[in-house]
């Protein structure tokens, strides 16, 4: 190190090296923030599953949420990780969620599956058989599974 202090050329090289190194460091951060941004951009196509409920619920209503969650967690775990499927539980009685009522014609606890293409909602459907099938968990879950798969595969 003491050598460097006394040698102007070496000083120059060292300075250039340091500056170069600093630039590289900056360049690195810029690149990694770019890749971070890339990974944070939502997938263009995704299937969103909503379970809409009200503040006070009956046992059947809670069971329906539980079964739906189980289907999502078991059958669509990979899809959730990849960001192809999202699941959201929404209380429509909260003021900030009121818009959903009109949008999806919500008249009771419901499971709505929405297909987003290019970030925009292309179509949606109401899985209205849930009230018939809730007595049979396996049939209920198959129905939910098929409903989601139909949009995923189309």
């Amino acid at each position: 190190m003491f050598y460097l202090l006394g040698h102007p050329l070496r000083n120059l090289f060292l300075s250039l090296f340091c500056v170069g190194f600093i630039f590289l460091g900056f360049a690195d951060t810029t690149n990694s923030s770019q890749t971070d941004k890339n990974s944070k951009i939502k997938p263009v196509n995704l299937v969103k599953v909503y379970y809409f409920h009200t503040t006070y619920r009956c046992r059947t209503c809670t069971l329906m949420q539980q079964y739906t969650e189980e289907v999502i967690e078991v059958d669509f775990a990979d899809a959730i990780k990849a960001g192809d499927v999202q699941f959201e539980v929404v209380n429509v009685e909260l003021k900030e969620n009121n818009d959903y009522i009109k949008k999806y014609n919500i008249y009771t606890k419901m499971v709505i599956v929405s297909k987003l293409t290019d970030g925009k909602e292309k179509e949606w459907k109401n899985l209205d058989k849930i009230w018939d099938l809730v007595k049979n968990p396996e049939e209920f879950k198959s129905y939910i599974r098929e409903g989601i798969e139909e949009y995923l595969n189309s």
Partner: protein
Amino acid sequence: MDSYFFDLGFALWLGILTSLSPCPMATNIAAISFIGRQFQTQRSVFGAGIFYMVGRTLTYIILGAILVTSTQSVPFVAMFLQKYMLKIIGPVLVVVGIILLGIIKFSFQGGGFNENVQKRLATAGWTGSLSLGMLFALSFCPPAAAIFFGSLFSLALKQSSKFIIPALYGIGTALPVLVFAFVIAFSTNRLGVLFNRLSTFEKWARKITAIIFIVAGIYVSLKSFGLVY
């Protein structure tokens, strides 16, 4: 043409299905006891039962007409009724039960008013049955709401029916109640005649109905606040 009759039958069936689900159990029991305690004469039971059915049917016709005319109002009406009706019906049942028991005597305008209310409720009157039918028809718990605002409403739209489809649904919801009420009334009547204690049975019938109303009212109130399932 086939599809039309099938849809009519389906509407009726949906009504029966709604009535038989565990959800309206409390209000059904209250209705059965209210209608069935008229067992002194078959005519009384029949009259009470028919007016209960008419009450329910009227409510569904009115609702159906509103909803088919303005389909955008479906979510609002559905959510409103589900949120508030049970909270109203619970206390109403308790109050009616208490009046039937004769514990509380209203003294708004002296004895005349009090006697009128008591007497009217006690004799069950056909107005009482009609009002009960109309009120209970509005108590939508989620499975009933899913059937009415979902399946039945689509059916009504499909057949452009503001009257017939909702009416058949209403008849369907009242049918199981009527059947049970008649069976109970008939058996109690026979028993009363058998034991020659018809008048004693009648006195007890009112008290039992009152207690059923109070218990049902408390249960429905608790349910409306999510405190029981």
